[in-house]
């Protein structure tokens, strides 16, 4: 397939998660919804189940208002809204971690709002690096396995997990390579987003195959024009109107620190005898994320360093409204950018936002500055 066909295929998956779900179900597979930002997808996959990402959708909220006050982020609100409206019908369970306060409440509301899809909690430790933290992560995984077995009838085996860990590492490598290639290739912000977003609705081995081919096509293809390069950071960057504003203003995403995108692919599962411990060690090695305890605020240095490495002149913070982990990090990010001579921009994003005119105006101003 050529570049455009590959991108079209990924766009279709990104734009039609429901169709993807129906396809897997029609193949006789069972699917499990996985909520932001991290869940042990390797375990789900190893049990022959299809992990399907749920990050909400750009939509009006009505039913979820019975459960949530207005000041909870729209990602949580729309996940619940879609659940109540039956959009996830067919999935056998949902795994929701408790990595932020709003995620804690999503799990609790889910039990009563969406009674036909069982809630499986994943409790991660914040003190994840010491051995006792790794042990606690393993206990969390064991609980997920028990709940998945009960909800789906599927069985867990360590041999299968070892293989899934390998498949996910391979996917990580391909996605990291894509992010680097996309920084230099002639690809729109919307197309770049499709590649990341589609990963949430495809089996990793299938996605790996398509993206690997795409990487080769992009390497052979034309280079990007212009040098208005930025690093984008935040939880989500998938709004079509927002992405259009990037493209219309000729602003290229040279790198990202987006939870829905590259943060997923930075850390591999190490090769250990026990694949479950290996998976827990992966979580313990993860860093540079607003949801993971970071006394030294290494994420801030990471953002500046990545911007520099990729020749980005600016950092665009896509601030998900009401996301306090990100809001706390914004101040040190801004200060670090100022100190490093990087332009920084705080653009508020929200699942309920339709009009990105303000963002467009900000990006127009940024275009001039770059």
């Amino acid at each position, binding site marked *: 397939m050529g570049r455009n066909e590959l991108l079209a295929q990924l766009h279709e998956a990104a734009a039609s998660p429901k169709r993807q779900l129906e396809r897997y179900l029609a193949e006789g597979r069972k699917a499990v919804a996985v909520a932001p930002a991290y869940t042990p997808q390797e375990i789900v996959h190893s049990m022959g189940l299809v992990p399907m990402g749920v990050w909400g959708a750009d939509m009006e909220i009505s039913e979820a208002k019975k459960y949530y006050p207005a000041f909870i982020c729209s990602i949580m609100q729309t996940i619940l809204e879609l659940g109540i409206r039956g959009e996830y019908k067919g999935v056998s369970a949902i795994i929701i971690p408790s990595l932020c306060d709003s995620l804690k409440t999503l799990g609790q509301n889910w039990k009563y709002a969406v009674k036909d899809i069982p809630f499986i909690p994943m409790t991660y430790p914040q003190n994840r690096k010491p051995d006792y933290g790794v042990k606690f992560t393993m206990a969390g995984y064991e609980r997920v396995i028990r709940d998945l077995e009960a909800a789906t009838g599927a069985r867990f085996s360590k041999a299968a997990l070892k293989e899934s860990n390998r498949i996910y590492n391979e996917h990580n490598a391909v996605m990291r390579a894509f992010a680097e290639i996309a920084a230099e290739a002639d690809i729109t912000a919307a197309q770049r987003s499709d590649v990341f977003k589609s990963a949430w609705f495809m089996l990793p081995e299938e996605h790996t195959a398509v993206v690997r081919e795409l990487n080769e096509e992009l390497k052979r293809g034309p280079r990007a024009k212009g040098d208005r390069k930025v690093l984008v950071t935040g939880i989500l960057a998938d709004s079509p109107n927002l992405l259009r504003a990037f493209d219309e203003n000729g602003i290229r995403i040279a790198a990202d620190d987006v939870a829905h995108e590259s943060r997923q692919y930075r850390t591999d599962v190490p090769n250990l005898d026990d694949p479950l411990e290996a998976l827990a060690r992966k979580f313990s090695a993860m860093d540079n994320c607003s949801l993971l305890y970071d006394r030294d605020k290494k994420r801030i240095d990471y953002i500046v360093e990545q911007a520099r490495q990729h020749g980005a002149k600016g950092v665009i913070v896509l601030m998900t409204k009401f996301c306090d*982990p990100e809001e706390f990090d914004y101040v040190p990010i801004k200060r670090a950018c100022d100190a490093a001579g990087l332009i920084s921009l705080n653009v508020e994003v929200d699942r309920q936002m339709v009009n990105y005119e303000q963002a467009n105006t900000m990006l127009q101003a940024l275009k001039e500055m770059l």
Partner: protein
Amino acid sequence: MGEEGKKSRPAPDPNSAKFKLGRIAAKAYTDAAEAKARGEMVGWCASNFPVEIPETLGLYVCYPENQAAGIAARGGGERMCSISEGEGYSNDICAYARISLAYMKAKEAPEQDMPLPDFVLCCNNICNCMIKWYENIAKELDIPMILIDIPFNPDYEVSDAQVEYIKAQFWDAIHQLEDYTGKKWSEERFREVMETSGRSSRAWIDATSQAKHIPSPFNGFDLLNHMAVMVTARGKEEAAEAMETLLKEYRENHEKGISTFRAEEKYRIMFEGIACWPWLRVTSQGLKSRGINMVTTIYADAFGYIYEDFDGMCRAYADVPNAMNLEHARDKRIRLCRDNHVEGILVHTNRSCKLWSGFMPEMSRQIGEACGIPVASFDGDQADPRNFSEAQYDTRVQGLMEIMEGNKGGAE
């Protein structure tokens, strides 16, 4: 700090619980300031951090949440929040955190000063927002941060895996503090602290349970003030003694048929959520003027830490309101409503607290149904005065009162 007693206030009785509790709360700040002046290290401590650790080690700590509440209650909330917002912090962030981050910058607040920290003690059994807030303080002041991570428990009971994880962190925290401050852990001292904490807790639970009497011998707004001592000083001898005095007074009030609720008690409600500190007088008066006594709150249950040993302590800290699942949190409140003959629930939908407010609509519905009582909510904030509307509060309280009246058979 409630409304009652404002007029012709008599000289405080130094033997009263109110005086003793107020003195303990104030002494925490002066002790810390004096320690700092002597060159001792002082920490900032999260409200639900296991106070037994600094107490056993003999460390001086201050409580930023307590300070923020004090600043907000005395009218400084908006000024301090604005300082943080000027730094770039969103006004969506918890107002306690905004006030605290502002204090770190301003280094003074006429409403309540406290020394800047040499270390921070963080525990997220109240919320994960604490982690982000303390990270920023630790990084900016370049001081150690000790985090005891107590994850939100999705199950009804605390698991052995969770206790094991918490216990390992407790020892890690103790060893880090020993290394940093030079203080030493003593098992003997820990047992004393544990026993004192148990004494304070038993007296607190017993005192708050006196609301089982009709009328209640106290105004529930008292609890919002007194709980500060339970949070910060329950391991201290004087706190245990003051709580026992409080219990004695409440029992005596009942025997004499008097109450610190200085109005006829026509209705009894449970108040849900953190106090609306900038509007304490308004929220209190809005109830009292209608004869509504807030007879209980989850705080009555939350700060009773009774345990027998170190493992028990670890388990107790995992079993606190904001770390427990909806069903467990609900059942605790249902018990409080039933034990205290509650006729309605008033929920503070607190803009600052995503965790507390995030599943409150569903939980309060379930409590209301289980107890057959009405639920009303109002929008507010624990420390930012801009997020509260007096008119809305008044309307909601009036509505709640009318339903309670109807339930008594008195509706037209």
